[in-house]
């Protein structure tokens, strides 16, 4: 098999004892590049770089009030004497006790939405909770939870058509999403980061779905806010997925992850088809196609069990059925993207059949992207470590299509601006049952 030859070549190449000295020379040569006078920013750029950057820096939105940040800073630097700190803590405790004991305002504010008198109390309590939380990962989890709250508020506000309120909630949502995304760093050894990343991937995937539904129903003056919230969500979801792919132990795990991502994209495609939005639908289908192609490439390179292959083939058959539904509901302009997705899905099935039949495949169906999915950029595959693990059987999940879904709501000529981020998805609340627990998507946290 070509795959085996590739691995053999790699090991033979690596074990060549004469290569060490030459590699040392090359390393020294490479360091010459580091000192090369040819690689410098232009003098004009260097001269103005600092000023131009400072002009472009936006004021950073802080999740905590400035004076809280100041106090935190003083505390961390040990500039608040212990006695003073104790006095402050007692005072704060007293204030809190009074607040809780007297009015119940905090409790009452839990259901407040932007525009209501108790809403600032609700946000204040959240800010306090964030400020009191020292652990950055725990804070990131809290940001995720608070982002979810803002989403719920947007859904509540939608009923009243309160565009200003939606904008307020959307802005806070963006802050929380951005803050939680900042913690998504691929540190392999840190189980806490991994847990956060998994939660974030699930949450943001769900939020994409919710925002698609919101956008479909929201008044036009809310579209800008929702678009920004959606773009932030899509970026955060992509970042989380990128981290998951990066820290995956091997190609088998990556194939499993991409399979799940493909399912999620397809579910999203159904929602966009119902929305009648060609651009977004085409983008989602392109993402779906890419994930399926990459799964095909990964299973070609990596030994997976026949059971896994059979399930993947069955899943692709289900995808074909869903794509047929999408084709019926989508605007004609999306037909090319749908046809491509169909083609990719069918090609994936043929790859499965070829592998199961033990046929010789001349080459990988597509170049496998690196963990960050650089299109057309293939990473070197690490040599397989150990025997192939038996990947979990994945029940095919078909994103259900609601036949009674609303027709496209874009008024002629006044369509909402296109999403600037990634794809969106179906909303569990729009007549489609929520994720079913399989690879198709996450439960709402």
């Amino acid at each position: 098999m070509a795959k085996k030859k590739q691995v053999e070549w790699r090991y033979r190449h690596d074990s060549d004892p004469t290569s060490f000295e030459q590699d040392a020379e090359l390393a020294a040569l490479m360091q010459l590049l580091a000192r090369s006078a040819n690689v410098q920013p232009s003098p004009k750029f260097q001269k103005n770089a600092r000023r131009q950057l400072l002009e472009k820096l936006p004021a950073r939105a802080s999740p905590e009030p400035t004076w809280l940040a100041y106090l935190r800073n003083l505390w961390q630097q040990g500039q608040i004497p212990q006695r003073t700190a104790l006095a402050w803590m007692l005072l704060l405790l007293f204030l809190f006790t009074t607040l809780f004991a007297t009015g119940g305002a905090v409790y009452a504010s839990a259901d407040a939405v932007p525009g209501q008198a108790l809403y600032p109390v609700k946000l204040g309590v959240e800010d306090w909770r964030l400020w009191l939380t020292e652990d950055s990962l725990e804070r990131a989890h809290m940001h995720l939870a608070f982002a979810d709250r803002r989403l719920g508020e947007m859904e509540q506000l939608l009923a009243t058509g309160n565009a200003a309120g939606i904008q307020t909630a959307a802005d806070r949502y963006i802050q929380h999403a951005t803050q939680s995304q900042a913690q998504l760093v691929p540190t392999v050894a840190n189980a806490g980061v991994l847990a956060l990343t998994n939660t974030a991937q699930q949450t943001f995937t769900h939020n994409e779905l919710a925002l698609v539904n919101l956008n479909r129903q929201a008044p036009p003056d809310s579209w800008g806010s929702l678009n920004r919230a959606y773009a932030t969500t899509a970026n955060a979801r992509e970042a989380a997925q990128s981290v998951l792919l990066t820290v995956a132990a091997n190609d088998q795990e990556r194939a499993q992850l991409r399979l799940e991502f493909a399912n999620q994209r397809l579910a999203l495609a159904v929602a966009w088809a119902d929305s009648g939005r060609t651009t977004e639908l085409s983008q989602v289908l392109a993402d779906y196609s890419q994930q399926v192609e990459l799964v095909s490439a990964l299973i070609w390179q990596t030994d997976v069990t026949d059971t896994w292959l059979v399930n993947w083939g069955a899943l692709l058959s289900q995808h074909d059925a869903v794509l047929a539904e999408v084709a019926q509901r989508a605007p004609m302009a999306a037909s090319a993207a749908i046809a491509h997705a169909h083609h990719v899905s069918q090609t994936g099935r043929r790859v499965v059949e070829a592998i199961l039949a033990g046929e010789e495949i001349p080459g990988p169906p597509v170049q496998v992207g690196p963990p960050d999915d650089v299109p057309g950029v293939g990473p070197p595959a690490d040599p397989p470590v150990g025997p192939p693990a038996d990947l979990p059987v994945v029940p095919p999940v078909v994103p259900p299509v609601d036949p009674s879904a609303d027709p496209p709501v874009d008024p002629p000529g006044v369509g909402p601006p296109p999403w600037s981020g990634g794809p969106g998805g179906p909303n569990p609340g729009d007549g489609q049952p929520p994720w079913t627990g399989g690879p198709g998507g996450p439960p709402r946290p």
Partner: protein
Amino acid sequence: MWSNQASAEERQLIKKAAAGDKNAFGDLYVAYLQPIYRYIYYRVGQKEEAEDLTELVFLKVWEALDGYEQRGIPFKAWLYRIAHNAVVDNYRTQKDTVALESQWSLEDGGQGPEATAMANEREELLRQALLTLDPDYQEILVLRFVAGLSHADVAVAMGRSEGAVRALQYRALGALRDSYAQQQQNII
């Protein structure tokens, strides 16, 4: 060049910048401008694009600095991680990867004409060899030998384990050796 471990001065700058001090952030920018530019330039191969991306990286750093925790991840590795992501995003948006050999231009570095010519020729050969490599190979070689990052920092920047980084570097050097020899043969 800043060392791998952030100095007290650098930590102070980071803290101030995280609190919203733009001037402190400007100082960080000036300190890291050259190495980050160099890293990006070797990945994208165009001066103007590298300059734009360098600025973009620092804008992203500014946005994310608030969530940066100094404990755990070295600032420099975190910075290169963001630069790595920016380059990857750039690949995504510009799928038609540029033919790098047409972009790299050699200049007289202030040496004599003959020495400059020889140095330039060797640099050019190496660059040509580098650009024929798989992007992951390019990345690890640039991070290790041009940016001067440790294996641990490269692991953070590339999102891989340290062991995988060592293995990748070994394979990358092997590939570079083959490619460099090929470039030399082409000249002969």
